[in-house]
């Protein structure tokens, strides 16, 4: 039986390609001609496409689960003594399998539109699903021609080569699926944008249909990035959580663009303004997702966790990128000037605030893009090999984020069209006071030197955003101004989207505090520590009580035991490990972390010190407020999720007349 499973998967993919090609043409043509039957094909087509790809994915998963080493990808990336979780995670722990996961997510979003978009005008749905099928067809060609996951080995090897041990970790097992659902989710916004450009019509209803897909993608991407950062934090063993590595940047750029899109779509929906900008952002966000895929898989940039790279594959993704994004941009160049501008607004207004958010977000994205690509540019123009590191990114990123956080506090307090800045600020007096108090308080608390000023400013910003967000919420529910019962009722009736904003902005405030504390007050000690010797860090006495070799299922580890005492009292026993995996042979560091919920004590054991028998090289870090980063990211994702359940996404937009959109489009264009 195992012999035919891989072939079934391959057959399924080939069939999916045929369906995708038909789906790319027929509904689009139907929408153009106003042919209902042809347009109606889009929905069953999307269901079939997802079904076929899902079968292929299941076949590959099965091959990994039963360790069928006659399948090349399995032999290259799995091993019979690997725990089951990592056999399954191994499916997407390699180039071919992760590409299949990409396509599965792509068709899943098509399926979701087909099943949920009952309120969608048939033309828009047909066109959007056609565009989505074109992207799917491109990726199916990519996988079938250059990265077939079902290639057989003859004769099959006795055992597999194993999965990179760094990837054998529960955090990382779920990181790629989250990330891909995020990346790929933006394809839906892209498809809707292209469909709207073809139709020549962008209105409030369009924005309302695009928003849930953008929100879904954004929520997944937020979680995916947070998981990846968390993994880097506890797995790489350096106590850092963000390295500005090209692969991290590749996921961060679509996040920045997506965040901008999320906010500009609100303006289109509420005020019928910023339309062509929002369309451009939809294209840009997906372009960044594709660019990320290209950078990770083509080998044009070096990174610690790049896939095995291959120029042919790189060329293929580049062509995909050029055709899809290039095509969309050309369409944009022709159609965008014909989009009618909507409501006007003054700079000091809700729209103005959202627009400023957009400008800062996209500038931040462009900066990250430039920093990531600079080594490439330098290489192309023979300026020598350079690497752009954290100092560059920190130097340009922080100044962009400061005004952003300031505006995030005020923006929601401003009225649409024309806001009252002085009025908003006077309503925010609590937040202003909290900012001042936090700056002064944190500055005095940490020592009150010149060097602490910058960090105090960072904490002040976090307090500003937190309190301003809470003030906005309190005003909405009339907290302390109306009887408690009424406030409660108002809170219950508050639109879910408003709750979403409150949660997400609060999350951002926590992230700002976490970033500030972690960059200013991270404590680090590296020493050669003898058995029984205690080291003092941030009020903790950390004693290395023993170090021994232990056996794991597929590795051998050197495990150190640290006893952590505070004022003489034992509060934790930590067991960091240095592991040596057998297949493939590779050392990894397993840090052990004691968390108070507000700060972490982070311990790492290294090699025995060659110069001092009985001593080990140990590294201890004190990481103040780092847990706030994870809480903040979770709150942001929760905000996205809550906003997604907003009533207006379920009941649909107030249907303005969209009669014979195809013909009006022709007239307008």
């Amino acid at each position: 039986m195992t012999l035919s499973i891989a072939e079934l998967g391959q057959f399924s993919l080939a069939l999916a390609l045929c369906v995708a090609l038909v789906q790319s043409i027929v509904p689009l043509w139907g929408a153009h001609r106003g042919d209902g039957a042809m347009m109606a094909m889009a929905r069953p087509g999307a269901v079939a496409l997802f079904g076929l790809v899902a079968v292929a994915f299941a076949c590959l998963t099965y091959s990994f689960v039963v360790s069928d080493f006659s399948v090349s990808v399995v032999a290259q990336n799995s091993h019979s003594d690997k725990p089951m979780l990592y056999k399954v995670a191994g499916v997407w722990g390699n180039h071919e399998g992760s590409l299949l996961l990409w396509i599965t997510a792509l068709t899943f979003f098509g399926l979701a539109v087909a099943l949920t978009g009952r309120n969608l005008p048939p033309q828009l749905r047909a066109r959007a699903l056609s565009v989505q099928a074109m992207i799917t067809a491109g990726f199916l060609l990519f996988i079938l021609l250059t990265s077939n996951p079902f290639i057989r080995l003859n004769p099959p090897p006795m055992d597999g080569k194993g999965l990179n041990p760094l990837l054998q970790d529960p955090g990382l097992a779920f990181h790629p699926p989250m990330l891909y659902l995020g990346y790929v989710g933006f394809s839906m916004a892209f498809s809707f944008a292209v469909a709207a450009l073809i139709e020549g019509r962008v209105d409030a209803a369009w924005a309302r249909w695009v928003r849930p897909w953008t929100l879904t993608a954004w929520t997944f991407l937020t979680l995916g990035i947070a998981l990846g950062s968390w993994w880097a934090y506890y797995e790489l063993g350096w106590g850092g959580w963000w390295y500005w590595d090209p692969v991290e940047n590749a996921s961060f750029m679509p996040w920045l663009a997506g965040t901008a899109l999320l906010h500009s779509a609100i303006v289109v929906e509420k005020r019928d303004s910023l339309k062509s900008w929002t369309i451009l952002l939809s294209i840009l966000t997906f372009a960044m997702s594709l660019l990320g895929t290209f950078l990770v898989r083509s080998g044009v940039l070096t990174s610690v966790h790049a896939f095995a790279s291959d120029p042919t594959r790189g060329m293929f993704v580049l062509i995909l990128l050029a055709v899809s994004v290039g095509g969309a941009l050309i369409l944009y160049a022709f159609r965008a000037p014909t989009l009618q501008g909507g409501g006007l607004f003054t700079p000091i207004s809700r729209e103005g605030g959202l627009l400023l958010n957009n400008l800062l977000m996209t500038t931040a994205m462009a900066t990250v893009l430039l920093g990531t690509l600079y080594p490439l540019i330098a290489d192309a123009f023979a300026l020598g090999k350079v690497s752009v590191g954290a100092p560059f990114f920190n130097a340009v990123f922080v100044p962009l984020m400061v005004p952003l956080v300031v505006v995030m506090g005020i923006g929601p307090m401003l009225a649409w069209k024309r806001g009252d800045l002085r009025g908003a600020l006077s309503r925010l007096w609590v937040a202003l006071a909290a900012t001042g108090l936090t700056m002064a308080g944190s500055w005095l608390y940490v020592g009150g030197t010149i060097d602490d000023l910058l960090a105090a400013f960072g904490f002040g910003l976090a307090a500003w955003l937190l309190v301003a967000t809470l003030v906005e919420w309190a005003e909405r529910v009339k907290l302390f101004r109306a009887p408690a019962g009424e406030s409660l009722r108002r809170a219950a009736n508050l639109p879910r989207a408003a709750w979403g904003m409150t949660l997400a902005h609060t999350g951002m405030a926590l992230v700002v505090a976490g970033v500030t504390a972690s960059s200013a007050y991270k404590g680090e000690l590296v020493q050669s520590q003898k058995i029984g010797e205690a080291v003092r860090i941030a009020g903790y006495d950390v004693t290395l009580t023993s170090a021994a070799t232990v056996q794991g299922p597929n590795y051998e580890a050197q495990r150190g035991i640290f006893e952590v005492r505070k004022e003489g009292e034992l509060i934790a026993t930590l067991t960091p490990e240095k592991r040596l995996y057998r297949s493939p042979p590779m050392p990894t560091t397993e840090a052990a972390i004691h968390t108070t919920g507000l700060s972490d004590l982070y311990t790492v054991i290294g090699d025995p010190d060659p110069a001092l028998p009985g001593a080990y090289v140990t590294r201890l870090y004190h990481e103040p407020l780092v847990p706030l980063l994870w809480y903040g990211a979770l709150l942001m994702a929760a905000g996205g999720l809550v906003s997604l359940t907003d009533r207006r996404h379920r009941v649909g937009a107030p249907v303005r007349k969209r009669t014979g959109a195809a013909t009006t489009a022709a007239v307008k264009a």
Partner: protein
Amino acid sequence: MRKLIFIAPTIMFVVLVGLFASQLLSGRDPKTIPSVLINRPVPDFALEELPGRGMPLRSGDLKGEVSLVNIFGSWCVACAIEHPFLMKLKQQNVIPIHGIDWREKNPADGLRWLQKNGDPYTRVGLDPDSKVAIDFGVTGAPETFVVDKNGVIRYKHIGPVTEEVWEQTLKPLVEELRK
């Protein structure tokens, strides 16, 4: 003028794609770490033997035949990973492997380690205070240098030598150098 704004994204995108394409087609590998010593003669040195082993290593010993120079130490965990493969190379007798026993705290540790795990080396020099390792530009252990007949360093491999590294990179180079 207004139209130009809408074409700008396309133009920027075309430039970007052109940049990527030129990088891809150039065939440059961004991963190559250039070493200053590649294609230069090995530095002059004369290292002591491991006490009790004999056969010390001097720069003159690296002339006349293509050889590998392997940096190792009994304290180095990753060296233990590559060791079985070096033993395999030794048994197949494909190439002389010389060792530089680096940063050994106790000179006897190196020989004890070789007696326990097997000794794949032809000659071994003891370099406890990094005198020679620094001249070679060693960044860590293990590291392996390919030295040609004339005593010129042709390649440096960082990290353990595995079957894959040998088959795909080192062996083809050694065969080329022997011609």
